């Protein structure tokens, strides 16, 4: 099966081509079969690859497959070639699995959309791109997937292109991603200049000899690459595209947030762990960006009233956690969280989609409430997801998030402040998620009468994926039970070969007692968040308003997302536009064309003067001729 790993990519690509080129002729059933079937097959192949990999000894779990050469120029060589190791095997499993469920769900959700075929072909392309990104064994091939997921997000966010906001959001996503890609591309170039290759295996093997620990080269490479990750994974300061990405169909949001797009940055950093370990400064930057983003985005999430926006900010925040983990050297914990997050975030988004489906696209949670009785499956699955993301013990999010927060404190690169960022973020996470849950499903219904009548549970096509994801969201964490609780932390052990010497770098120097203490603290924090949300939104529903009145300025600041979009617009977008107009209207038209046309005018002017001498009388010309001859002869004679 390992040798057939390219089939993982082939199926979604074929699905895209078939539906994209001929889909307009196909019947619904065939479209569904192609779209879901291709991703399903891809998942099965991934599963086969994964199991085959498991059969090998841990050290031997490394397989490369070359298809055909790609860009070859002098000493620069790349190919369409794939790398299967524990990291990528796990990723393809998560990506294709979650994507498959989302495809199934979409057949219900997008049922009435006129762009049905287009939607599914894009979705297949999206899956293909992400799988390519994950399987690539060199940076440049990864870059294809990297940009292609950007493209797909552009296409899918702007799927309802007649809406200006959707088209704008798609464009914004692509452009902000491009800014990150700029860094990524430069990082690839620098890597090539220093290593002479862009293949992962030699780079990672030789990083310790080629690079100087903490040297400028290592720092520069990793920071440039990290810029790419910041763009793709929506971290400060390039996170602005993700909340707007809500304009796309909800399953797309699920796909972007859970499986196919934003996790790319984490994956890349984890993939290049050996490089990042050579650059402590970069590690610190990664950790700080991650930690600050985790807290910052969570704080925005507290105040949002749009169900999808809350989830979007929560994704940014959770991605921050993953970077925090990578930044302190706990790459395994980061990937673990990536996986559990994929389950519960896909679940939450699909639930949100289910709610929207029931309420004719209503997004404002202030206008919902009491939906529990109308849509029990959605409610219960949403609850599972909420418990998981809030970090309640026993659910998947607890294991992964706790691991990160603990590593932020305990690892060699960790620090108390990093721990604090994570812990404070965790409090807010629990609060805003339960706020969302309570406002949407509990309490009195605030629906309009028509919606009240309309509200219904979604069809099976949609609820079955929800249930599967809910199960995964609950049990997904049991592959990584920490040693402390008697587990073997199997996932980190499994990933270890991909990270090489990493585990030694983050060797903890704290005793089990401290770990237990910290775990209890983080559980208490999570429960505290839940309790606060309960007080605010179930028991004393008037309290939020009062607080908002009291701290008016802070409330407006956070409610308006710290005005970041507005600031970017005023500080970056407008001046650049102005500059562009100056270039064109002033420099091009006046300076360059002005001088060119001015030259032409000058010639015309001189001609106009000179032509006065042309009287048309031959005698005048002859006289001029004679005078000229006399002057020339005279000059030579009298000289």
């Amino acid at each position, binding site marked *: 099966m390992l040798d057939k790993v390219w089939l993982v990519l082939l199926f979604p690509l074929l699905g895209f081509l078939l539906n994209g080129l001929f889909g307009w002729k196909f019947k619904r059933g065939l479209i569904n079969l192609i779209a879901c079937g291709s991703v399903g097959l891809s998942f099965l192949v991934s599963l086969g690859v994964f199991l085959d990999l498991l059969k090998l000894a841990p050290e031997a779990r490394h397989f490369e497959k070359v298809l055909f050469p790609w860009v070859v120029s002098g000493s620069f060589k790349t190919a369409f070639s794939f790398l299967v190791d524990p990291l990528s095997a796990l990723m393809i499993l998560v990506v294709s699995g979650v994507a498959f469920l989302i495809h199934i769900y979409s057949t219900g959700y997008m049922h009435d959309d006129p762009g049905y075929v287009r939607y599914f072909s894009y979705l297949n392309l999206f899956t293909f791109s992400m799988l390519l990104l994950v399987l690539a064994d060199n940076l*440049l091939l990864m870059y294809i997937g990297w940009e292609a997921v950007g493209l797909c997000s552009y296409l899918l966010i702007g799927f309802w292109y007649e809406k200006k906001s959707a088209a704008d959001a798609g464009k914004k996503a692509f452009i902000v991603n491009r800014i990150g890609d700029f860094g990524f591309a430069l990082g690839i170039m620098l890597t090539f200049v220093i290593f002479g290759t862009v293949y992962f295996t030699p780079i990672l093997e030789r990083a310790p000899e080629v690079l100087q620990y903490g040297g400028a080269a290592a720092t520069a490479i990793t920071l440039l690459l990290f810029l790419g990750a910041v763009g793709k994974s929506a971290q400060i300061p390039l996170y602005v595209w993700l909340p707007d990405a809500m304009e796309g169909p909800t399953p797309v949001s699920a796909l972007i947030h859970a499986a196919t797009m934003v996790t790319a940055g984490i994956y890349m950093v984890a993939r290049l762990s050996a490089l990042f370990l050579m650059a402590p400064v970069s590690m610190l930057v990664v950790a700080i960006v991650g930690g600050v983003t985790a807290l910052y985005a969570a704080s925005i999430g507290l105040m949002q009233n749009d169900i999808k926006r809350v989830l979007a900010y929560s994704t940014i925040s959770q991605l921050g956690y993953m970077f925090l983990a990578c930044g302190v050297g706990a790459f395994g914990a980061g990937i673990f969280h990536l996986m559990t997050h994929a389950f519960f975030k896909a679940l939450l988004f699909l639930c949100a989609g289910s709610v929207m489906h029931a309420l004719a696209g209503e997004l404002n949670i202030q206008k919902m409430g009491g939906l529990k009785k109308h849509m029990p499956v959605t409610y219960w699955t949403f609850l599972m997801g909420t418990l998981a993301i809030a970090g309640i013990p026993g659910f998947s999010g607890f294991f992964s998030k706790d691991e990160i927060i603990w590593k932020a404190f305990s690892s060699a690169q960790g620090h108390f402040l990093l721990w604090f960022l994570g812990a404070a973020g965790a409090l807010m996470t629990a609060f805003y998620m339960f706020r969302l849950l309570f406002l949407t499903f509990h309490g009195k219904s605030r629906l309009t009468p028509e919606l009240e009548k309309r509200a219904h549970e979604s069809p099976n096509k949609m609820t079955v994926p929800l249930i599967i994801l809910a199960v995964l969201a609950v049990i997904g964490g049991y592959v990584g039970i920490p040693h402390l609780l008697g587990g073997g932390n199997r996932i980190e052990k499994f990933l270890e070969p991909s990270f090489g010497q990493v585990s030694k770098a983050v060797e903890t120097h704290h005793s089990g007692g401290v770990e237990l203490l910290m775990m209890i603290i983080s559980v208490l924090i999570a429960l505290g968040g839940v309790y606060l949300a309960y007080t605010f939104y179930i028991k004393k529903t008037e309290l939020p308003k009062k607080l908002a009145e009291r701290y008016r300025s802070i409330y407006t600041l956070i409610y308006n997302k710290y005005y970041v979009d507005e600031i970017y617009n005023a500080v970056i977008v407008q001046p650049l536009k102005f500059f562009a107009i100056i270039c064109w209207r002033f420099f091009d038209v006046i300076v360059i064309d002005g001088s060119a046309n001015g030259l032409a005018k000058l010639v015309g002017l001189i001609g106009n003067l000179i032509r006065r001498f042309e009287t048309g009388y031959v005698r005048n010309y002859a006289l001029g001729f004679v005078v000229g001859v006399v002057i020339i002869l005279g000059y030579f004679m009298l000289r």
Partner: protein
Amino acid sequence: MNMGESFPILTVVTFLPALGIVLLLLVDKNRQLLVRNVALFTSLVTFLVSLFLYFKFDPGTGDMQFVELYSWIPSLGMGYHMGIDGISLFLVLLTTFLTPIAIWSSYNAVTEKVKGFMISILALETGMIGVFVSLDLFLFYVFWEAMLIPMYFIIGVWGGPRRIYAAVKFILFTMTGSLLMLVAILALYFVNQSYTGVATFNLLDYQGIQIPFNYQIWMFLAFALAFAIKVPMWPLHTWLPDAHVEAPTAGSVLLAAVLLKMGAYGFLRFCFPLFPEATIHFIPLFSILAIIGIIYGAFVALVQKDVKSLVAYSSVSHLGFVMLGLFALNMQSLEGSILQMLSHGISTGALFLLVGMLYERRHTRLISDFGGISKVMPVFAAFFMIVTLSSIGLPGTNGFVGEFLILLGTFRENWLYAAFGATGIILAAVYMLWMYQRVMFGKVDKPENQKLKDLSLREKLILVPIVIVIFLIGIYPSAFTSRMEASVAKLMETVNEKYRVEEVMPQVQPRRDFQIDESQLEVSTHSFGGGEIHRGQ
């Protein structure tokens, strides 16, 4: 060089279109369809014949292949010398590939004076191929100038409302450069004669001589001016938007796809091997101009109101990449530049085709007149999307490979140049996607747009080969780079070797009086008896 005896395939490829002109002259000008078909047929045959070049090309050598060398005006050393290497091969193919497409695209667009139009296009094709295959400077100059004439007519006769202004501007800008180039060619001729005693315009013969540095500078500048105007490099670019906006679609396509490449090609073929030290001397200047061009072109494109001038300014930006790559002078950057020339030809050509198709339907090119076109013309939207993506260099399409190799090569020489150049990639996404959004997305709010017809079969067939090539270059570029490799390596060797030799050797003192051979002058003036007058000092 022993292939001269075999089948003169380059001559055939070059003059097949001219043969088509002769055929066209025999056709009644009122039978428009026949006229069009004859022209299309000729160009298609030319393309098929030129494909042989690709398959027969020997990628193992950097020398000229398919060489034809005949004496033409032996007393002056002018020869009929043709040949191609891995650099010109693809430019010839690009020309022959796009000409039939351009002709086919004008079946509906050009309805007046069809015969004249087709003759102009075919004449243009002969001129363009001639430029790429000439290895004799005189022959090259003849083709270089001859090609301007049909282009002048294409813009000036079949163009838009301001066509005369645009055509004259085009001619004046280009001529200014070419005249200086002519002077430099003559200077080169005499320098060579003073060294070797042989009067020749043969390019390959020039490569052996060591031209003193201070001459190199001036000759380089004279050549470079001609080529830089053609490219066009900032700040000599303002003829381009005017010419593009006014030219008919087919003219824009060929102008963008091929004519602009001649500038870059000129640098590769003439400036670099002939004046290596001057080239190295001018690297910073030209790199910075190229970077300004990349960023400036992108910014100005951003605020254009006319789709065609937006695409024209995007050309300025893309050609900035090409120039940046050329002046980085290493394997990756040079191959990247050549690939980028092809890519730009393909994708910008396709953009002009698409804009032309819109124009045929709506008779406007203002961005603000459109909106929501995706809804009424979905097939068109899909093609437009693919071409847009290739233009912004999405990996997997042609645009990416060239741009990336250029930046990679530049990065190896100077990371700062590469970093500045790379901002062009971001800006490209901004202006192209913004344009795409305003034209294609949103609601159909103009009643005129509601009844637009989607692409006809002919239009689809025009675009399909382009899309195939877009992905071919994007996914399997080795098919192209493998054939360039030897030639590019040879070029680099020439530049570097000469440079190194010059570093070590003491400056050769040239003869002071190389310009005018005085003994000849005396002979020619004696018989009239007046020769002594000026010289009695």
